[in-house]
């Protein structure tokens, strides 16, 4: 049996491997974007491991089987805060598991596993591009395959040393990797089965010993109380496996079980026919890479990517990007959440009342839909952030607390947002508690430490200008309401601060979306001071409708509405009247008119008012 080490690999193979790793890195960094995972409150809240630099966190990790691997995974996962760092960590782990698996296959079969050793790395890539966290799986597989190599070395030891070392190794792997102990037992049983000693028996017992808690934790997850207090563990955290953990473990076992057969097959392909080896090798690469591409294409989850990316963009305040993304969508791809994001972007760019009807609007476009189980986290978070920005601090705080309660892991962003809520509501002592907790976070720790220092110095709102501004417009009139009505308190915002531009624009434009011209006109009769800007276009359009519909606004029109817009409105009304004359009934007239006038007037409020739809022509191509 020949054993090759990394140093004996041919340069071409090493170069190919390096090229694959570079491609892996670039794919993850540029296409998958690990930072989308880190910044998704849904991904983080459900599966992303928290990490803390505190001693307590370390001690806790050391207290249960699998805690060490969990600690390492949690630490490495924090790299996902940055796209390139996250890609680097994923690539290094993919490389590590590939190299150790290749070595293991060689040690068992005497021949390379070839591209088949890339299986776990490919699985990791599939997992990460479905916006799930692959780091724990890759860490566990790497540790298990590396320890399996150590085990193979132990088999060469004298039997009396072996007797002592092998159980210790089993215990160590079980303690460090948790469920990985089960995989380790399987792999080592296969490796030792041909040695005519008691080692395979020991390994087999290891399988039984470790499979029980894993099966118990994974299969009986519906009945979690049974997971506790078993003979072998008191904490199931290191034992629960996901489908991809099972797939990775299954792949490793299958590959090693068939290592000899694979080696023989590869030998047949590439070695016994040297003349044809080159083209067969090339063909092998082509087939292998085609398989990778096919797997990645089939398993890529565009919907989930949109889901996490949109949250990322909103949280970053990337308003240009949100508009650009919206412009790339078809009308049937535009969800209620997308529309909400778009309107928020338009507001922050100062063009909400100028341009919102260039997009397909509906009466609920400025509010968020009732969250479902799928989008509970991102929708509630958006709602909380909007409420905070508007000045509905208690509503924001309530929603953030509810997210906090429902999160399995605690996103530091969430904790930071809660700290800010407490600062705005004049509870620095409570804010201090959140920040103290955050000081041990790798990503938010520095900001938390800075804020604590400022609070120590007595700085109001932690000397944060943004928080001071929010506090200025926060509702200060206390009213007791049920949860449903806590949302509908915009009037209190304007009572507190008539110049709360966001509250004002959202309120007025909601009137427009609902076709409530009377309320719109009332609001506009007593406008706040927003500088000497001209009235936004859609409001001018609505004023024209006010005159047309109930005769109000006549006196103000000449000075408030531009002459060009007046002409355009007249053209719209004439065209609509002309089409109506040609049609047999109002329904048919509306249908025909909306189709014919869409190109020219689709982006105006009067088009929306009449036809209950809006948007430039491009949306309806």
């Amino acid at each position, binding site marked *: 049996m020949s054993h090759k080490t990394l140093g004996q690999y041919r340069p071409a193979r090493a170069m190919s491997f390096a090229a694959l790793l570079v491609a892996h890195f670039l794919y993850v960094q540029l296409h998958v974007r690990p930072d989308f995972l880190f910044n998704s409150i849904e991904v983080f809240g459900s599966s992303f491991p928290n990490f803390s630099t505190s001693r307590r966190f370390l001690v806790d990790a050391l207290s249960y089987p699998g805690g060490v691997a969990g600690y390492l995974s949690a630490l490495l996962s924090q790299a996902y805060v940055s796209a390139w760092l996250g890609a680097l960590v994923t690539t290094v782990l993919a490389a590590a598991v590939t190299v150790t698996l290749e070595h293991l296959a060689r040690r068992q079969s005497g021949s390379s596993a070839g591209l088949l050793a890339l299986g776990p790395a490919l699985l990791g890539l599939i997992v990460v591009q479905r916006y799930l966290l692959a780091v724990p799986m890759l860490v566990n597989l790497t540790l298990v395959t590396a320890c399996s190599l150590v085990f193979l070395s132990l088999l060469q030891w004298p039997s009396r040393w072996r007797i002592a070392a092998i159980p210790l190794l089993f215990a160590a792997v079980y303690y460090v990797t948790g469920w990985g102990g089960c995989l380790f037992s399987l792999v080592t049983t296969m490796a030792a089965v041909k040695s005519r000693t008691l080692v395979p028996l020991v390994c087999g017992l290891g399988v039984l010993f470790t499979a029980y808690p894993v099966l118990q934790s994974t299969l009986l997850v519906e009945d979690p*109380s049974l997971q506790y207090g078993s003979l072998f563990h008191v904490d199931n955290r290191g034992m629960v496996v996901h489908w991809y953990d099972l797939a990775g473990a299954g792949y490793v076992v299958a590959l090693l079980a068939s290592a000899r057969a694979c080696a023989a097959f590869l030998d047949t392909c590439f070695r016994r026919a040297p003349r044809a080896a080159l083209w067969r090798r090339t063909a092998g690469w082509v087939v292998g890479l085609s398989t990778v591409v096919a797997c990645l294409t089939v398993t890529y989850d565009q919907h989930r990517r949109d889901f996490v990316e949109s949250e990322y963009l909103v949280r970053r305040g990337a308003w240009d990007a949100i508009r650009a993304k919206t412009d790339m969508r078809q009308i049937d791809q535009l969800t209620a959440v997308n529309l909400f994001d778009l309107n928020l972007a338009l507001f922050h760019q100062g063009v909400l009342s100028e341009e919102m009807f260039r997009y397909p609007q509906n009466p609920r476009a400025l509010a968020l839909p009732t969250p479902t189980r799928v989008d509970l986290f991102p929708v509630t978070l958006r709602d909380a952030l909007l409420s905070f920005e508007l000045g509905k601090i208690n509503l924001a705080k309530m929603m953030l*607390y509810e997210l906090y309660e429902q999160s399995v892991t605690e996103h530091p962003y969430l904790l930071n947002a809660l700290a800010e809520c407490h600062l705005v509501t004049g509870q620095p002592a409570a804010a201090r*508690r959140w920040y103290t907790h955050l000081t041990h976070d790798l990503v938010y720790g520095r900001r938390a430490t800075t804020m604590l220092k400022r609070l120590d110095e007595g700085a109001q709102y932690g000397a944060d200008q943004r928080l001071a501004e929010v506090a200025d417009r926060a509702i200060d009139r206390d009213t007791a309401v049920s*949860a449903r009505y806590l949302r509908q308190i915009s009037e209190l915002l304007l009572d507190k601060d008539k110049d709360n531009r966001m509250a004002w624009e959202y309120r007025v434009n909601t009137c427009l979306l609902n076709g409530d011209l009377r309320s719109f006109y009332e609001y506009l009769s007593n406008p706040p001071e927003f500088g000497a800007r001209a009235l936004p276009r859609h409001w001018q359009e609505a004023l024209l409708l006010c005159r047309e519909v109930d005769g109000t606004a006549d006196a103000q029109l000449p000075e408030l509405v531009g002459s060009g817009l007046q002409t355009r409105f007249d053209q719209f009304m004439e065209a609509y009247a002309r089409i109506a004359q040609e049609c047999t009934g109002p329904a048919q007239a509306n249908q025909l008119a909306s189709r014919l006038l869409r190109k020219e007037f689709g982006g105006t409020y009067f088009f929306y008012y009449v036809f209950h739809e809006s948007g430039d022509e491009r949306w309806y191509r």
Partner: protein
Amino acid sequence: MNLRLLAQVAAGAAIVGVGCAAPFDPGISVTVDEKVSIAPDYSGITVPPNCAPLNFVVATRGSGYAVTVQGVHGTPLRVASSNSRIVFPLRPWKNLLAGNAGTDIHLIVSVRDRALGWRTFRPLVIGVAREPIDPYLACRIIKPIFRPWKRVGIYQRNLETSEIREVVHGRNLGNGCVNCHCFLNNSPDRFFVSTRSPRYGSAAILVEDGQATKLDTKFGYTAWHPSGTMVTYSKMQVRQFFHTARTEIRDVIDLASSILYYSVDKNLVREVPGVAASGTLETYPAWASDGETLYFCSAPVLWDTPDKVPPDDYAKVKYSLWKISYNTDIDTWGVPDTVLSSAKTNMSVLLPRVSPNGKFLLFCMCDYGVFPAFQKSSDLYLMDLSTGNYRRLDINSPESESWHCWSSNSRWIAFSSKREDGEFTRTYLSYIDENGDARKPFVVPRKDPAFDASFLQTYSVPEFITGPVRLRGRVIGAAARSDSPKSVSYEQPSMSTAAPSSANAAPEQ
């Protein structure tokens, strides 16, 4: 033999290690007449002789810390640390406290400053009471819950060692809620706990004789009769609502409530005659230690529209304290009588708890409503039952105090307070002397003194118990998940179906 040697070497290494970290020489230390600031603030408190180590963090910055604890008796305890966390070894601490029961101990803190050298601050005096505290405290640990809940657990803390263990957790019943734990005479072997679970429904779990039994009824606030033959409980239509600007956003109202009792032996639920009636709200039953008087809180219903939440006059709902006599032998009730009227206090009187020796009644008063934990104005009051006189205790803070309980020897109280930040409740202990005077309260000691400063959950409903609950949480959980609960008989119709009865006249408000 080898193990012993190993332990000795390890202990020696630890001592050398600690010594190397912060060598302290009293001879070169400068005494300063300043009070050292420590967290938690343990200065001037009175602790039980079986108290867990009062570990703390020194707020004064320094490069080394040395603390000496000395009393009239016993060997002084010295601890040195290179960081500001002072953690006392358990056994020497316990010996020192036990040896100084009934006297004071002094906590002498020295801090090494790189420029000024060692400075020793004015000693902090801590009183050690003669009377021990019940060794365990059961409480709920939860995040600040608004509407949904996911992780609710009842835990027990060993007050002698600061160890904490789970009693039962919501995960044991499909992420359900566990609440209203109520122990019979502070005993860990017999208690009720209520459960709510979307999957397994609401139920009361009776734990006794090492078994847990699910009853097909749900209890609200529960109180054991001292004889253990029955429990009284409130049955409420609770509604939550919210405030638009108040720092405590949450608020709670009972739209309807009444008091019932469950005879354990007869497996029978009855209404307390003269108490359960329409037009009034009754809640928070509490038994006097002799079992002959039931205290409860009652308020008139002020609204005509039962579905409106909150009702218009929610802030005018003020509960009075009432009592009704009970004859255990013949199972008959007396006539309700006012103990403390809200008309007199202009506040809502809530959560009465009678001391086991029958001398005092501890209760809350707040501006309005039924849930003091959500009322910043809630404070603790003590009534001398022999005279009926009551007074506000000195242990209150500007934030909410609530959920109090008595130790079995009537010398210690535990209560929940939001005094630290107005948001997260922490459990405080206080010594009550024979005159009913309360000593400065202190937060329940922790092994890691810095833990609470960053712990983002609340402790609520502390209850003293005389030993650990031994029944496993999974057994209680299994009972809660059972689909064949013990069927309870009702002598009177339940609240939702009860017809208003003029015979059972409501207590006059």
